[in-house]
């Protein structure tokens, strides 16, 4: 049972709108999976189907081997869920809110008291445990949401936009917590987000969803490599002396699209992997290479690339 999440040709239609179409998602045990897509791409719908809160139109969802549609209770027992815009009972304290969730999970009060303190301590809210949640800031509520997930000792956690609408420092705290969750407690995590640089920071693997379809999936390196295959790469070169001659020579190489320079450093955007051609051209132009490397793709570039393609498909 290596796969925590497995969906087979999962579809969800609302009347004529295809919210999710033939989705085949596989998440392995222990990984942090980034589930990316713009708003309305079908991320939340997929999550609701994973939890058995919405029935798929067709296809199958399995979480840890349980069919979410037929055995939602088993799935919910082992899955923690932090919804987008998580809400709490505002007139109850943080501790009371968590106690309610613990009770719903059948944890007796004797055991839950310790767990609640532990979880609150973990997310740095132990000092305000007896405040009413109504007084909490957004970031505090999100952290309480993570404590809420931790309470039930899940095997698998679904976090829907955990950092949306939070200041950078708060977002960083939450991202660190998620990484710790994964490393210390060995919880498999599905992180749905549209905030790319955050996903990039902590995710092992990402899947990009657009209009209900999974358009790309893999580690960042794999996706980057795929992009080079599709003809896009960036090379960073540092030379000892930058001459106009050299620039001319570089621009003449077939496939080079753009050359940016700052000081002695050049960023060359080109089609395909042209590292060899670039180094030859520099030597021929009489330059000395101090450093040359293919720049890794940022997720943003990868992401935009898929969405540009998606737009083209839509127009065609």
């Amino acid at each position, binding site marked *: 049972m290596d796969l925590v999440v497995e969906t087979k040709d999962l579809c969800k239609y609302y009347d004529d709108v295809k919210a999710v179409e033939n989705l085949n998602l596989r998440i392995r045990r222990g990984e942090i999976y980034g589930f990316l897509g713009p708003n309305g791409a079908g991320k*939340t719908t997929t999550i*609701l189907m994973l*939890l058995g*809160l*919405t029935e798929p139109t067709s296809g199958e969802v399995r979480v840890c081997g349980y069919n979410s549609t037929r055995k939602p*209770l*088993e799935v*919910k*027992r082992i*899955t*923690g*869920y*932090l*919804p*987008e*815009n*998580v*809400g*709490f*009972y*505002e*007139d109850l304290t943080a501790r009371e809110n968590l106690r*309610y*969730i613990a*009770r*719903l*999970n*059948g944890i007796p009060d004797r055991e839950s008291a310790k767990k609640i303190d532990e979880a609150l301590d973990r997310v740095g809210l132990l000092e305000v445990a007896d405040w009413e949640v109504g007084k909490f800031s957004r970031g505090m509520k999100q952290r309480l*949401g993570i404590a*809420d997930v931790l309470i*039930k000792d899940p095997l698998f956690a679904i976090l*829907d936009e955990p950092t949306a609408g939070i200041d950078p420092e708060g977002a960083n705290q939450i991202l660190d917590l998620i990484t710790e969750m994964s490393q210390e407690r060995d919880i498999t995590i599905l992180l749905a987000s549209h905030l790319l640089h955050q996903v990039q920071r902590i995710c092992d693997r990402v899947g990009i969803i657009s209009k209900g379809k999974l358009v790309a999936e893999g580690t960042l390196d794999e996706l980057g490599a795929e992009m080079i295959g599709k003809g896009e790469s960036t090379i960073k070169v540092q030379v000892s002396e930058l001459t106009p001659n050299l620039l001319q020579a570089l621009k003449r190489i077939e496939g080079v699209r753009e050359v940016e320079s700052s000081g002695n450093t050049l960023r060359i955007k080109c089609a395909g992997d042209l590292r060899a051609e670039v180094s030859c051209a520099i030597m021929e132009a009489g330059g000395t290479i101090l450093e040359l490397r293919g720049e890794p793709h940022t997720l943003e570039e990868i992401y935009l690339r898929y969405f540009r393609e998606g737009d083209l498909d839509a127009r065609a």
Partner: protein
Amino acid sequence: MHGLRVVFWKELADHFGSRRFMILFLLICFIGMAAIYIAAQTIGEELARAPTEFVFLRLFTSQGGALPSFLSFLSFFGPLIGIILGFDAVNSEYARGTISRVLAQPLFRDSWINGKFLAGLATVAVMLMSIILIILGLGIRMLGFGPAEEEIWRIGAFWGISTIYVGFWLSLGILFSVLFRRTTSSALASIAAWIFFTFFIYMLAGLIADQISPLGPESGPEIWSRHERIKDTVMRISPATLFEEATTATLVPTFRGLSLMALLSKGEIPTNPLPLGQSLLIIWPQLVSLIALTAICFAISYVIFMKQEIRP
């Protein structure tokens, strides 16, 4: 079952700790005091004239001057209690974003809504019980003796019927809270239903009766009785009418029936009090209709809620 219990106790604690419960309770207490005040004025005279049976039941039904009896107070304001406790049961959880978090816990969806309904009903039952006990206690102090066994049973029946009646409005409130996503919409819809069933139904009943069987100066008694019958039938759509009829029969042991015939032939029928069983028999249809209305209302909200998509 476990989930239902957890939800029930949590909701019950919420109800009793909430500000709106305090306001409601103050309102009810005030009504109870008013009832006792009226009763104190009228019962004293009656007792002096001739010791009557079932004095304690009079505490709930006697009216005096401008102030109506506790019974009519309850039939007007009972709906408000139910509506206030129920109108935002489900949609406020959407608004606060708690519903998807709670329903992602291992808990059947029906346990959640059932727990909410039962907690509301228990709150109503406790509230009504306490006010009835307050009235009884003040009554004992005022009269100097306690209620007879028959009176206790009748008051118990009255308590049960009132709880079901307020329970109907609670389930109507919950129904609207499932149907409308905004709490203001559900509150307005519930209030509209309350106004319709409590006030407009009189006009509607009169209108329909006039249409079907118009009354003229030469109308004979058959036309009159037909007119009244149609009016009664329409009125009984309203739970407020059912409640008034049912509670009158339980609190007034001499009450013989609701039809025009029973009212006209008052002189010919003996006026000795009926035993409780017989009184209940008279209002059996009203009782069943009240329970059915409550159950249907809740069943509809249950079905809609079970099919509803839970989106954060």
